[in-house]
C-alpha cells in the first residue's frame, strides 16, 4: 500500500514537471485525442458486429436472390423466385403458424406468469422472496440441450413420468412427441424452463423499483392488492414489461431451435417445424441457400416489426406518464 502511495507521489511529481515544461494541450487537441481513443476502444466490438452480424444479414439478401447449392462455383440469379416459392409453399405457411403458436404459449408461460409471480413474491408474501428467486433462477443457467434431453425423458409416451402422474388422475397415455400440438407444447415447456427465471428477475427488479410510498398510500385507502397491481405496479413497470416482451419474442425465436432439433427434428410430418428450423433444414439438409436466406429475412422482418412496434408503443407510454 505504502509502495503504491510512493509510486503515485512520484508519478504526480513527474507530471508536475511535465506541466512546467508548458506542454499545453489545447482543448481542441484533447477532444480530437479523446475521439480517436473512443473509436479505437469501440473498434474491436464494431468490427466483430460488422463481420458477424451486419455482413451476414446483407449476404442473406444477396443469397436470397440467387439459386445456389453451396458447392457449385456459380450462383444463378433468379430474382424474387425464392420468395415466391416460399409463399406458395404450404409447408412454409404452416411453419409460420407453428412459430406463432409456440410464441403464443411462451408469452403466457414466460411473460404473463412470471409477471404475476414476481408481484406475489414482492407484495403478497412477507418473507422468503430471496430464497425463492435464487432457486427459480437456477434453471436459466442450464443448457437448452440438457432441458430438451430431460424433457424428452419426462414426456416419453411409454413409461414416462409425466404420463405416469397423469395416470393417477385417470388420464390415458399421451404420445406427447408423436403428435403435433402436444409436441409444440413440450418444445415450449423446454424454452419456458430456460427463460422463466431470467424474466422473473427482470420483473422483480422493476417491481421493487416502484416507490413503496405509493403502495403504502394505496393500502391506507384500503385498495385491494389486485387494484394495486393494475393501477400502480402495472403502469409503473410497463416500460420494463415492453422490454421483456420484445426479449421474449426475439430470444424465444432462437430458443425454439435446440428443443425442436433434439425432440422432434421438425416432425411428425413437419408439424413442429418452425421458421428457425426451416432455415436450418434448407441450409444444411437440402442445400437450398436461396430458400434459407429468404426464410431468414422473413424471420428478421417479423422481429423488426415487433421491435418497431415496441419503440412506438414505448414512446406513447412514456409520454402518457
Amino acid at each position: 500500500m505504502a509502495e503504491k502511495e510512493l509510486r503515485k507521489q512520484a508519478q504526480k511529481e513527474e507530471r508536475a514537471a511535465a506541466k512546467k515544461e508548458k506542454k499545453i494541450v489545447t482543448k481542441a487537441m484533447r477532444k480530437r485525442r479523446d475521439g480517436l481513443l473512443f473509436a479505437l476502444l469501440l473498434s474491436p466490438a464494431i468490427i466483430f458486429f460488422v463481420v458477424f452480424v451486419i455482413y451476414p444479414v446483407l449476404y442473406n439478401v444477396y443469397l436470397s436472390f440467387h439459386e445456389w447449392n453451396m458447392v457449385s462455383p456459380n450462383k444463378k440469379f433468379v430474382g424474387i423466385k425464392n420468395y415466391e416459392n416460399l409463399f406458395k409453399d404450404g409447408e412454409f405457411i404452416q411453419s409460420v403458424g407453428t412459430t406463432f403458436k409456440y410464441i403464443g404459449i411462451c408469452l403466457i408461460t414466460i411473460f404473463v406468469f412470471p409477471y404475476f409471480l414476481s408481484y406475489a413474491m414482492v407484495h403478497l408474501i412477507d418473507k422468503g422472496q430471496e430464497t425463492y428467486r435464487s432457486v427459480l433462477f437456477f434453471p436459466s443457467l442450464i443448457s437448452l440441450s440438457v432441458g430438451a434431453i430431460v424433457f424428452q425423458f419426462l414426456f416419453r409416451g411409454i413409461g414416462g413420468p409425466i404420463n405416469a402422474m397423469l395416470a393417477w388422475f385417470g388420464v390415458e397415455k399421451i404420445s406427447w412427441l408423436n403428435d403435433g400440438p402436444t409436441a409444440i407444447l413440450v418444445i415450449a415447456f423446454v424454452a419456458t424452463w430456460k427463460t422463466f427465471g431470467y424474466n422473473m428477475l427482470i420483473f422483480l427488479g422493476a417491481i421493487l423499483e416502484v416507490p413503496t410510498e405509493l403502495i403504502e398510500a394505496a393500502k391506507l385507502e384500503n385498495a385491494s392488492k389486485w387494484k394495486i397491481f393494475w393501477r400502480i405496479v402495472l403502469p409503473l413497470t410497463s416500460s420494463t414489461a415492453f422490454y421483456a416482451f420484445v426479449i421474449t419474442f426475439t430470444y424465444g425465436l432462437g430458443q425454439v431451435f435446440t428443443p425442436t432439433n433434439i425432440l422432434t427434428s421438425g416432425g411428425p410430418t413437419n408439424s413442429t417445424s418452425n421458421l428457425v428450423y426451416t432455415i436450418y433444414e434448407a441450409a444444411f439438409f437440402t442445400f437450398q441457400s436461396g430458400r434459407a436466406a429468404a426464410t431468414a429475412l422473413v424471420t428478421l422482418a417479423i422481429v423488426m416489426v415487433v421491435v418497431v412496434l415496441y419503440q412506438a408503443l414505448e414512446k406513447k407510454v412514456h409520454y402518457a406518464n
Partner: protein
Amino acid sequence: MQTKKVKNTLKQIFWHAVIIATVIVFLYPFLYMVLTSLKPFADIVASGANIFPKRITFDNYIHTADAVPLLRVIANSFMVATLTMTVKMITSVLGAYALTFLPNKYSNKVFYFFIITMFVPFSVIMLPNYLTLAKLSLLDTIVGVSLPQFADASAIFRLRQSMRLVPKSLIEAARLDKVPHMTCLTKIVMPLIKSSIASQCIFMFVNCWNEYVWPMLILRNQEMMTITLAMKKFSGSEGSTGWGTSMALATISVALPLVLYLIAQKQIISSFMSSGIKE
C-alpha cells in the same frame, strides 16, 4: 381484528403454496435428471413417476466414461468457453468504457447500433457465418466456435450500466492529473466494478458452455465434440443404457454452472434484476 389477522395468515399461506408449487415444477426436471443418473439400468425404464432410486449406483457414469472420451469432451467445452469469455470480456469492457467515459456526438448512434445487433436472431445469420468460417478454414476448430461470439451487445449494455455508477468526477480528477484513460480503466473503473465483471464473466462462460446449435454446425469431427453434442448422441436411443448415459452426461454438464452459480449467486441475480430497468 382477529378475523382479519387469520384471513391475512391464510392469504400468506396460499401465496407461499402457489410459489412453492412453482418451485417444485421447476426443480423437478433437474432432480429427475440427477436422480435418474444414479439409478441402475433396469430401474430407469420401470420407475415411472417415482423420482427416488431404489439403489444408488454409479454404473451410468462408468458407462459414460467408456462410451465417450469424457476428458476430451470436457476439455473442448472448457476451451471454447474460456476463449469466448476472455475475448468477449475484453471487447465489452473497452466498448463500455468508451461509451461511458468518452462520450461524444456519435456515442448514442453507436449504442443504438449495438442494441440493433441484439435483435438479430442467431438463426438468421447462421448460414452466412458458416460460409465465412468455411472460407477461413475454421470449421472443426475451437476458434471457429468462438469467433462469431467475440462481441456481445448485451454484455456491453450491462457493463455500461455498472460503469455509470462510477462517479464521473473520479475519472475527471484522474484525467486532470494526466492519468491515461487505459490506466483509469484498469486501476479505477475495473476494481470498482469487479463484482459485476466477475458475474458477467461467469454468465458468458456458462452461456458458451451450454451452447448447442453453433458447435453442432461447426464441429463435425468426433475429436472436437463438446459436452452438449456428446449428450445428444445418446438421447432418444431407446433402452435404459442410452437414457442412463445421457442423464449422466447432462448431470456432468450442469455441475460446473451449478458450482459457479453457488459462488456468485448474489452478484448474478442483482445484475439481472437491474438489466431491465431503464435509466
